[in-house]
């Protein structure tokens, strides 16, 4: 019960602080800011966790003070939930071409969307250039002398995906 109660409380607090910050100013590096916020919130919450004993929960179960494994479990719960949200946020941050295509088809209703319109509207400047710029912004690639070159950070990041695709014996995706 302690894990559920404190873990969810921490996660909800993180979400509200995140929304508040985003309403004041949208950070340039949003994913990095979310990671920093998760860590900061865990330190801020620690003094409040220590010695907490919600009286309404004490009527349901016998409430002992938190032990080391309890802290570990609560923080593990909070970090994993936050990580799940950050991964989900990645989907919000970038327009998914499949979802954009589906919404475009829906807008045409019974008339239907001509295929060539789709290819024309979703060109390289919409689908490719912004992703290359993201790599440079996130320092996973550099743009030098007119060329895009993967950095060591980018190489390490992509190596996990390459390794797993090899384990699955799967082709190059995209």
């Amino acid at each position, binding site marked *: *019960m302690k*894990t*559920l109660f404190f873990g969810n409380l921490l996660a909800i607090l993180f979400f509200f602080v995140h929304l508040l910050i985003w309403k004041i100013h949208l950070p340039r590096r949003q994913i990095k800011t979310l990671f920093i916020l998760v860590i900061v919130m865990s330190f801020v919450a620690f003094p409040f966790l220590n010695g907490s004993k919600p009286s309404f929960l004490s009527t349901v*179960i016998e409430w*002992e003070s938190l*032990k080391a*494994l309890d802290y570990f*479990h609560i923080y*593990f*719960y909070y970090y*994993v*939930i936050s*990580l799940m949200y950050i*991964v989900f*946020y*990645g*989907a*919000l*941050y*970038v*327009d*998914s*071409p*499949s*979802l954009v*295509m*589906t*919404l475009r*088809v*829906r807008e045409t209703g019974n*008339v*239907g*969307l*001509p*295929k*060539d319109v*789709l*290819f024309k509207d*979703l060109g*390289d400047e*919409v*689908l*490719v*250039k912004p992703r*290359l710029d993201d*790599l440079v912004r996130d320092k996973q*690639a550099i743009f030098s002398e*007119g060329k*895009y070159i*993967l950095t060591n950070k*980018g190489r390490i*990041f*992509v190596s*996990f*995906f390459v390794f797993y695709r090899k384990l*699955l014996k*799967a082709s*190059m*995706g*995209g």
Partner: protein
Amino acid sequence: MFFIGNYSKPVWGVEITSNAIAVLNVLCAVVALFLNTVTQIISYRTILRSSLLKSILLGFLVGSGSIFLFYLFIFSRNKSGYVETFALLVANEIIFFALWYCFFNFINMGETARRIRIMRELQAFPEGLTYPEFLQRYNAREMVQRRLDRLLGTGQIFEREERLFLNKPIVLIIAEVVKWMKIIVMGKKSEFD
């Protein structure tokens, strides 16, 4: 930590201490994720070659089921602590689901993400690629065609006389949810707004 139960008798000839159970209680979601991963890899390479999604779902069932079986075992040893047992089952299933969601997205990114494909293309050329050189290898036309093939193949949309129409609503529902979440969290519908 809460008392797990009576382990004075060995289980299948193995002595189990309360400390061991307490640690497993905290880490069972990680063990479940490992079982999930092994199941997904083996099933995709053997019996479920044609469906990555089915192998991912099978892995999820194995992982989630293992946590459930673990707590069924705990409950059988300590019926009086059923409230705490149930709370821990729920907490660990949530942890496993969150870990599985990250795992699912990791596989999905490897399969469909533009960023990963772009990085793989650049990885093959350590000296780098110019923008036109890159587009010869991977471009918007291929991106759209792959996704169109996927949407048509899964029946989300269908084609008639060179025009596209909606069929199943699943991807549309996801698209609407994501659209509204973007508006709530980021205050805009698109990254280009």
